[in-house]
């Protein structure tokens, strides 16, 4: 018999145990395909929710952005960049926020920020003119926020979104962005200041 290659026992369906985040990351690193399913269930909603929060709604490229988030997530896990200081859902949420900010900046470069929201985006059901007016006002607010974020420095925009929109702590933001808590706090403070200044400019202009 020729020299045997190595095969690994995989538990049968129904015998899977829920793995901790660390065990899941380790299993992914071992190319365990069954761990991939657990990971998917654990990060799908945080990624979806983060994209919705930052972008305001699911747009026509929402699934592409989710796919991009998944790819970045795996890249960070495989390259050992996952920080044990936060949970996998938190990590995935932060990655999705970064993907959403990239999308906003890209659309801004393509001068599609204002038009994009109206093209194929999910539309809330309305029951009358007042609802429609409220929806339009809400959309304009989201568009304004996205415009401001797209014009800020990426680090400050990211700190702002992670803290003020997605609710991550400074310690988590530091772990997620590979900086210190002090640096994360500084970016947040400066980011808020810059956001307010730009918001005022837009109102006046």
């Amino acid at each position, binding site marked *: *018999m*020729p020299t*045997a*290659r*190595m*095969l*690994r*026992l*995989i538990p*049968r369906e129904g015998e899977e145990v829920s793995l901790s985040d660390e065990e899941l990351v380790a299993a*992914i*690193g*071992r*190319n*365990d*395909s*069954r761990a*991939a399913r657990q990971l*998917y269930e654990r990060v*799908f909603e945080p990624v979806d*929710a983060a994209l*919705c*929060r*930052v972008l*305001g*709604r*699911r747009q026509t490229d929402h*699934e592409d952005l*989710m*796919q991009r988030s*998944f*790819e970045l*997530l*795996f*890249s960070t*896990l*495989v390259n050992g960049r996952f920080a044990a200081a936060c949970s996998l859902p938190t990590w995935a949420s932060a990655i999705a926020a970064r993907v959403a900010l990239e999308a906003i900046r*890209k659309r801004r*470069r393509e001068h599609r920020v204002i038009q994009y929201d109206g093209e194929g985006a*999910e539309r*809330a059901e309305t029951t009358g003119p007042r609802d429609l007016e409220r929806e339009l006002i*809400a959309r304009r*607010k*989201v568009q*304004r*926020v996205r415009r401001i974020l797209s014009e800020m420095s990426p680090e400050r925009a990211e700190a*702002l979104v992670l*803290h*003020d*929109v*997605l*609710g991550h702590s400074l310690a988590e933001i530091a772990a997620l962005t590979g900086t210190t808590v002090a640096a994360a*706090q500084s970016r*947040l*403070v400066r980011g*808020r*200041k810059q*956001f*307010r200044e730009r*918001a005022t400019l837009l109102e006046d202009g």
Partner: protein
Amino acid sequence: MTEEGAPAELEELRRAPLPVEPLAKSASRRAALWPGFQSAFVRARPDPVRKTPVRAIGVGLLLAGALIAGSLFVGRTTTNPSPAISTVAVPTAGPATVAELAVADGEATVRLVNGVAVTATIDSMLTFDEIEPRVDLGLGVGRFVVPKLPAPDQFSVHTPDARVVVHGTDFVVSVRLDNEHGGTVTSVSVREGVVSVHHQGGEAVLGAGESWSSAEQRAPAPVSASASPPVPAIASASAVTVPTSKPSEQPTSTLTEENALFEKAMAARKAGNDAEVVRLLDAHRRKYPTSPLGPVVERERERAMERAKQP
């Protein structure tokens, strides 16, 4: 601590309710994104794959790309698009035990102890059951050559939306995403022998040269197995992803060449050369217009064109 609180606009964004969608749509979206997640997992896997001691036989097998990844570890696998052939021989135990494994030119061929040979294209997701003589094809294209099995033995291929039961035949099954309706579309094309395809309570019996697709069965009229005689379901050429042909016109298989060309395109994608990706995939479309890889080719081509537009 922060000097001021969060800007009001961001607070509003944080408190705004997330868009609600019907459960069915949410479930469909989740199912539709799963294959992409699996592909991302496959593409991101570490290189090289480490050895793992043999623990047992009849394990789940993940075949993708130019490597054997997932639940099967091979001693010397690489991310090289054209890996050296590697073979594996293991003790026999059970009908779905892997007897031999070969990897070459972006295809993986697995032979089971019961004689079944499975050749899978890149990015296919295959799982072998430990106990039953059965293979699950989650996504991709697999060619199955099943020897004549003594009654009542049978071998089956399960996809997300169909079950193909065979008794001795040569056939191709492909599974692709259904972007229009969500979920997946399964297509079956028989080269030799007879297979029965079970889908949504119905059964279609296919002979050599016949094809079937779940896309054509959206309002199925179930055919009872006891009905006499069973009529083979032959899908139209425009609906299926595998070509139909009469028994006397069996086309020469170009699966190896199709895979090789697709793999070249994926190597170009890895190298960041999107223009080359588009060129190679255009060539694939021209040369193999009815290839089972068609949907994957289209998807990768669109993505390459999008990337090429980015600054």
